């Protein structure tokens, strides 16, 4: 997976029409290479949530272009027909809380995505077990999410995000509920996974503890992004 992990160019999103129209995103440009982890920072009302929804293929931008891996998703009002399949196969999601499915055990939480993509159960489970081993929670494969610690749950959520080998992972405040040590641990894991699986990872965060760890940071303000060099080695 060479080239772009994700590339967006001139992305705009307008809500409403006429005099009631609001431009939530005015001119967003962003490129994240495979294996790279970048931060996305912005105050409330800056358009961060709207951008996240566009990146997550949950809503369509009004204009602009977005490419995931080698596939064009949005292009000036055109969109790929099946956004649901894009979310399933080409984007991994990590949330502030792990949001694991409580009635599935750990291995099936991870294997669910490949299963939804049509992989046989045993192949999907084998893939899930490998990911859980990599993330050091393989021994909890048969447990219920409620039986895991917060850190373990977040690692399972990371494994789930990686399950379909997406070109990009969106991590929305993944360290918010964690203390410094655990937060930095999650960032370290994200960096390792990005490198190992050649996945572009965008971390949306307010967390002062982890901001210095990013090599590149995108600031979003009034619907526009500005790139900044970070201090991190990520």
């Amino acid at each position, binding site marked *: 997976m060479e080239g772009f992990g994700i590339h967006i160019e001139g992305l705009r999103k307008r809500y409403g029409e006429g005099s009631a129209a609001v431009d939530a995103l005015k001119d967003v440009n962003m490129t994240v290479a495979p294996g790279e982890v970048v931060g996305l920072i912005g105050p409330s009302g800056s358009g961060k*949530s709207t951008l*996240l*929804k566009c990146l*997550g293929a*949950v*809503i369509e931008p009004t204009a602009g272009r977005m490419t995931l891996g080698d596939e064009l998703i949005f292009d000036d009002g055109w969109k790929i027909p099946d956004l*649901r*399949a*894009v*979310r*399933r*196969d080409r984007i991994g*999601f990590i*949330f*502030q809380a792990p*949001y694991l*499915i*409580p*009635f*599935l055990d750990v291995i*099936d939480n991870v294997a*669910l*995505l490949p*299963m*939804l*993509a049509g992989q046989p*159960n045993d192949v999907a489970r084998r893939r899930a077990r490998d990911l859980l081993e990599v993330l050091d929670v393989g021994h909890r494969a048969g447990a*219920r999410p409620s039986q895991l610690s917060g850190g373990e749950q977040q690692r399972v959520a990371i494994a*789930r995000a990686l399950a379909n080998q997406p070109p990009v992972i969106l991590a*929305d*405040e993944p360290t918010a509920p964690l203390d410094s040590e655990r937060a930095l641990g999650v960032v370290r894991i994200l960096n390792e996974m990005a490198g190992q699986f050649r996945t572009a990872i965008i971390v949306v965060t307010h967390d002062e503890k982890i901001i210095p760890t990013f090599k590149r940071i995108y600031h979003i303000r009034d619907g526009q992004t500005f790139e900044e060099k970070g201090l991190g080695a990520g």
Partner: protein
Amino acid sequence: MISLAGRDILHSWSRFVLTGVGLGLLIGVTLTMAGVYRGMVDDARALLNNSGADIWVVQQDTQGPYAESSSIHDDVYRTLRALPGVSRAASVTYLTMQVRRGDTDVRAMVVGFEPGQPGEPGYLVAGRQITRSHYEAVADVKTGFRLGDTLRIRRHDYRVVGLTRRMVSSGGDPMVFIPLKDAQEAQFLKDNDAILGERARTAANPALNRPGVPGLLEALQASQTANRSVNAVLVQVAPGGEPERVAREIRRWKHLQAYTRPQMEEILVSKLIATSARQIGMFLVILAIVSAAIVAFIIYTMTLGKIREIAVLKLIGTRNRTIAGMILQQALGLGLIGFMVGKTAATVWAPFFPKYVLLEPGDAARGLLVVMVICALASTLAIRVALRVDPATAMGA
């Protein structure tokens, strides 16, 4: 693909089972109501079967003896026996009343019959048939009488010499069989005070107590004391005979009403228990609506409790039909648990009902189908909610 619904049910099985038990008891009541109706129909058929008749001859322009009162003279059977195609004919009386047993009484239908003739209890489970002309009785086991018990009908005591089973009226009251003469007396005879009063009135009437006509008053008083009425005559047709043809002859020449077996069944099922059937039908409709409301509420509440998980599932690309299928399967699972509990409960408690409850396998199969349809319909509300969940909810947006 794994079964999301199955996993969810297993995950919260106690809640599912408890809900299913609650729903099951309601379904049990519904199945029992259907069983009560079936029991009434079966009671009516048992009544006709046990009478041993092919034709019921009753008073003209009545639908007796079960649906309406009927009174005909007790010598009618003799003329009927002489008709071509008639094998046997016998008078019977039917009277639903309180039969006393010691200090208590039992609701029963008292049947007067002639031993060895149509109308006699078809079989006994204990004791013997009536052999004496008076004061012996055969009772259905549901009356609670035992062999040797003494029961009281009006002014006379009867000894239970035989027990029978499934001999009930169309209303489900168990039968007590006594000799015809005794039954006529119980049904039509006046009490002593009334007889004395009637005699005095007749004696005081100069038209009936004429000095020049000796013996007239005594004859009149004797006729007032005795009763020669019965409710019906049961007719058996000779082998190979056509009941409809014989009934037609009776209607034409004897100025009586005659019903064949299908006609009598029509009267009992379509007329006598029709109101009860409609009543039960209304109950069934209400219970079906209540069941649907309960399933809809439970599935809706359970779905609302999973909005975040549904949003996550939608965000990670789960098809709408997979989510809808999960909710539908849960509703059907709940219905299945409820049906199994309901069927078991109905089977357990049916024998304790005072009237016969007939649980037919066909009704159970139809009940299962209806429960499944109700559950499927009830799940549509929850499915609608689930399909409207915005995947962005999972992103905290």
